[in-house]
């Protein structure tokens, strides 16, 4: 191996590496230059973009030999340029950064764009950046940021980033600067002294018995340190959120293609790969089932001891037979949705090591440090306190990182070898082995009177849960609760069943299966509106839940039911678009569709407490400790805003320690759109306690009455006498007096268990929305383009309107993928060229409208929004397709082929 020399960020570097290895791997691994990210290694995501002789290229496609003698600039190389400061400002100010894994690559490309076109149009920006995928933002705010940067470039000056920090404002994210600079460390960006690398040996069979594993040849491979199998698991070789049925490494049987069978530990990633290729596993293939219907047949192979039906919840209200008897119109249809991949741009990754105190420490990409810790402890047979889980910067989660992936493998390898270890999935491995959204078949029967009042709804849902339980039972339960939609339905029966198959494991994904049932429900309502000749907004207004109404589980909603307001918010646009529809051009037809949605915030019918601690540091800064994982959605910003508001402090006077099981109290998982609502409320309560403590003690020290004293602007001040103490002085006094200025608060908004008929109050509050899509359909090819999208959301209170918009835009774009392009076909889709997530150009103009119907149990009236944004999107789009060309899409995604077939009455 000869040394290769090139100029990296202005300095000549020399590396010993195979010249055909990708520049990306050399930069990241050999040179520890981790600004360029590895999102796919196939040129599809743009996260690895660097400048090669000044032009953006995907470093993963450049053999390092090609870079020899040339000039390579990564985001790190831009740091000292004036343009970088301007871009950093613009990206932070416009909210263009969420998880941030896509950001360094975008910054590099934007630098090249602005050099070529100093004043680009929005279309030029979209085209130039079209090779960058972002799964979080929906692209709108990135385009905004680039346009803003160009504007600043023209003006030649940088405004200050000082924005008010309190509730209702949009201060820059605390982690924005590091993410933009490429210095935030994601799971794969950690390098530890003497670190070993892992490679998982995975099953090529969907269902097989393991007759033997021979690791001799692998162990003989230079660099291979150990080959671990199920026998090496010291504790319980099972994990699972609700039903612990998944082995860390398969024992006598594998149940899906891609299941982990053995784990190779080696001194380099290449050695680990070579070793893995040499592990001999003798399989005896077993009959496999690939659909829930087949798996429910009596002769089907039994995948788990309890049978193939994992869970079958029911919600029963009133008497559906009577409801249908009273109906004047009955509509009955079946809808299907495919497996959906989370497709965060950061594949699962992390490291594990023993710290100086002998604590097994994991730094991983995750949504839930505490669940990870407790699950890994069981696997190792250790008390949880012997483990510590720290969240690495996390490049998107969407529910996928609520499940264990690399965690138990890392823990096991570190435990077995005593070494620091790293495991980073490749994109293909992420597709192959991690959880998906459940494919559903939803049979929907709906009855209504001629004037459009719903009399009954009956729904049967059959879901494919794949090989292991994961979140299946919760997902199906949420589905039967939400299937009737946000409407007053006097008689309802919902039956669901999720079934084990030999398909990929299905778990949690944004919306926990409400997007699937909303697709069915809202398509049905659209059909009903057409059947009755009612406008679809009017029909929904006649049925929508209002304060005082009861849901299908009999829960009477008292507060924060803003659905009607969201409908009214889009009604004007709807009418306008009806009045002046776009002129059909030749084969192009235009249509408009609407859909509503609702979503219960928090775990279904289970407690979901969050605890946080707020303390006064010695220097007078206020310090928040929370385990809440920020996966890009921005919960940390919002929690700090709540603190800033209550304590009347600027962000610079606040400090945050987050998502570390050793240092932070358990704030629950980042799921079910609960963090702002639950952890936000806990933060609010802890902040109020601290404020009162500061007032009380401050008053004493000032010799004033507590009622005369206020906390503001970093001081405790007596309003009457004008005397004041800074928080730093107060902290010093506390130290002397031995006062502990730390307050802990726990919040657990009420949810009641459901009875046998599924009746009860499963969620403390619900979010609501109405979506409106305008689409263009090409009659001759079936191609669909979304031209315009309006998303009106009742968020209770927008604590940070920019962040809320960012969630809505990102959700709508994810919903657009669900509607039109995404479907995971096991064995066939394994990368971003076969699994198509939406891009810059596919994103329409999106107009988020915020409705604030305050939720009394949430901080300042807020409730969640994270998942909600994508729920109504797909049916709004398919309803718009119907409006345009008169075909009803009942199976997602609405690919050109499907639309075409429907248009031509084929199949």
């Amino acid at each position: 191996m000869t040394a290769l020399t090139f100029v990296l960020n202005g300095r000549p570097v020399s590396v010993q590496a195979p010249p055909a290895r990708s520049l990306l791997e050399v930069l990241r691994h050999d040179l520890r230059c981790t600004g360029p990210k590895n999102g796919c290694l196939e040129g599809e995501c743009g996260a690895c973009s660097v400048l090669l002789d000044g032009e953006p290229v995907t470093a993963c496609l450049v053999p390092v030999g090609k870079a020899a003698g040339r000039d390579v600039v990564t985001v790190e190389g831009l740091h000292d340029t004036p343009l970088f400061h301007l871009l950093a400002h613009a990206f932070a100010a416009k909210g263009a950064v969420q998880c941030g894994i896509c950001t360094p690559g975008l910054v590099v490309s934007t630098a090249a764009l602005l050099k070529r076109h100093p004043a680009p149009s929005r279309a030029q920006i979209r085209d130039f950046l079209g090779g960058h995928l972002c799964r979080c933002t929906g692209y709108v705010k990135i385009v905004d940021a680039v346009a803003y940067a160009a504007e600043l470039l023209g003006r030649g000056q940088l405004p200050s980033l000082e924005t008010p920090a309190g509730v209702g404002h949009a201060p820059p994210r605390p982690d924005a600067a590091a993410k933009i600079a490429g210095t935030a460390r994601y799971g794969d960006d950690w390098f530890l002294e003497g670190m070993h690398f892992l490679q998982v040996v995975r099953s090529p069979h969907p269902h097989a018995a393991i007759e033997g594993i021979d690791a001799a040849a692998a162990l003989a491979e230079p660099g291979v340190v150990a080959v671990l199998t199920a026998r090496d698991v010291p504790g319980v070789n099972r994990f699972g959120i609700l039903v612990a049925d998944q082995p860390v490494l398969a024992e006598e049987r594998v149940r899906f293609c891609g299941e982990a069978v053995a784990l190779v530990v080696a001194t380099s990633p290449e050695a680990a790969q070579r070793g893995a290729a040499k592990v001999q596993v003798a399989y005896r293939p077993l009959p496999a089932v690939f659909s829930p219907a087949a798996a429910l047949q009596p002769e089907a192979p039994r995948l788990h001891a309890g049978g193939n039906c994992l869970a079958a919840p029911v919600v029963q209200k009133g008497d559906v037979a009577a409801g249908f008897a009273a109906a004047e119109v009955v509509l009955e249809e079946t809808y299907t949705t495919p497996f959906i991949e989370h497709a965060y741009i950061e594949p699962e990754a992390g490291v594990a090591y023993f710290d100086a105190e002998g604590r097994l420490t994991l730094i991983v990409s995750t949504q839930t440090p505490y669940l990870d810790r407790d699950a890994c402890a069981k696997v190792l047979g250790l008390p949880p306190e012997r483990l510590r889980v720290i969240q690495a910067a996390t490049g998107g989660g969407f529910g996928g990182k609520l499940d264990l992936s690399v965690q138990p493998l890392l823990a096991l390898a570190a435990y077995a070898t005593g070494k620091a270890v790293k495991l980073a999935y490749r994109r293909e491995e992420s597709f192959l082995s991690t959880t998906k959204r459940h494919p559903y078949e939803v049979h929907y029967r709906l009855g209504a009177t001629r004037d459009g009042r719903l009399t009954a709804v009956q729904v049967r849902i059959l879901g494919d849960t794949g090989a292991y339980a994961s979140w299946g039972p919760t997902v199906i339960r949420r589905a039967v609760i939400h299937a009737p939609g946000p409407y007053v339905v006097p008689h309802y029966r919902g039956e669901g069943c999720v079934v084990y198959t030999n398909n990929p494991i299905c778990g949690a994904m944004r919306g926990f299966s409400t997007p699937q049932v909303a697709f069915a429900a809202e398509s049905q309502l659209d059909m009903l509106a057409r059947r009755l000749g009612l406008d679809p907004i009017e029909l929904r207004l006649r049925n929508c839940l209002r304060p005082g109404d009861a849901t299908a589980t009999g829960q009477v909603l008292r507060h924060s039911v803003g659905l009607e307001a969201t409908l009214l918010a889009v009604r004007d646009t709807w009418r306008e678009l009806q009045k002046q529809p776009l002129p059909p051009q030749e084969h192009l037809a235009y249509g408009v569709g609407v859909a509503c949605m609702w979503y219960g915030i928090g775990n279904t019918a289970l407690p979901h407490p969050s605890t946080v601690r707020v303390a006064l540091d010695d220097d007078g800064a206020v310090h928040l400790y929370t385990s809440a994982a920020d996966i890009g959605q921005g919960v940390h910003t919002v929690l700090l805003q709540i603190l800033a508001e209550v304590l009347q402090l600027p962000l610079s006077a606040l400090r945050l320690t987050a998502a570390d099981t050793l240092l932070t109290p358990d704030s629950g998982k980042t799921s079910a759109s609960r963090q702002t609502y639950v952890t936000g409320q806990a933060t609010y309560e802890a902040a109020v306690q601290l404020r009162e403590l500061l007032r009380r003690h401050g008053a004493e020290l000032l010799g004033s009455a507590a009622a005369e004293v206020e906390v503001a602007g970093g001081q405790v001040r007596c309003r009457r006498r004008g005397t004041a103490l800074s928080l730093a002085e107060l902290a010093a006094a506390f130290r002397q007096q031995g006062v502990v200025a730390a307050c802990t608060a726990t919040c657990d908004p009420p949810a009641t268990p459901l009875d046998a008929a599924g009746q009860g109050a499963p969620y403390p509050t619900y979010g609501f929305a109405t979506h409106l899509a305008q689409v263009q359909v090409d009659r001759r090819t079936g191609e669909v383009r979304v031209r315009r999208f309006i998303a009106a959301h009742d968020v209770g209170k927008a604590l940070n309107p920019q962040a809320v918009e960012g969630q809505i835009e990102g959700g709508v774009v994810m919903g657009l993928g669900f509607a039109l392009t995404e479907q995971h076909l096991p064995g066939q889709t394994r990368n971003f060229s076969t699994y198509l997530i939406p891009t810059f150009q596919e994103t329409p103009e999106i107009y988020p409208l915020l409705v604030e119907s305050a939720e009394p149990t949430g901080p300042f009236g807020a409730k969640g929004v994270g998942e909600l944004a994508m729920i109504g999107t797909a049916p709004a789009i398919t309803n718009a397709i119907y409006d345009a060309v008169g075909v009803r899409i009942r199976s997602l995604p609405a690919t050109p082929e499907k639309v075409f077939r429907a248009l031509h009455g084929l199949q």
Partner: protein
Amino acid sequence: MPYHVATSFAEMATLLGQAQARFTLLAGGTDLMVARREQLLEAPVLDISRVPELRTIALEDGKLVIGSTVTYRQLLEAPLVQRHCPLLQETARRTGSVQIQNLGTLGGNVVNASPAGDSLTALVALEAEVEVFWQGKRHVKPIGDFVRGPGRVDLPPNGVVTRFFIPLVEAPWGSGFYKLVNRAYPQHPMAIAVVSAAVVVKRAPGENRLLWARVALGAVAPTPVRARESEALLCGQVPEATCVQRAAQAAVQAVSPIDDVRASAAYRRQVTPAVVEKALRAALEACQ
């Protein structure tokens, strides 16, 4: 394994001439690094992207001559291409991303011989010729003969594609391209064609009649194919609506598509006329 970067034609010729083993030729690497990342580490690689002659665009003897390692980016920026061959700019614009356009080359697209190769499809419509350099000699053959099947071309070991010759057409003529993809944005560049069509038409000067038309289809057969029946229906005709529709319809006679992860064979066949019509209309519109 050695990785040679040839910086001149002579150096490239010498290396290929002395080679004991078969070189893997690498131009932009955008196909190789995806499809054969592991093998590249094991085989001797010859990087030809820095051979000046292969990067040149020129006019010679009534032909536009494009070097094999000319990138999409170069095609998009070259005034000669804009003037004489906007079709290749259209396909370059519809290819990948800015990053891919900066790396990927015309020669790589041809030798990769994907049935869906966009620029390859355009070159078929342009009746381009391929120049191959092998054992010290240059050989020229029509592109249709050069591309044999999916991923298969008529190239001997250590032979290298050096240039493409594109015959110039005298005005009035026009070209058009349409790429149907599974994305929610027509002709999206970051997607492999489900069906594509590239069309060149030549009009009789001062008349509405077409002297000839060439229609190439991508992703509907083992290689890009010419729709000869469509061409025959256009030849000598005034292209009013029914003529265009009939010609577009006739394109299905040229296709032999397969089912794959992107679409079914049946759909490919059914939408071929629509795709041809879009490309043909664009070509007619551009015809002046």
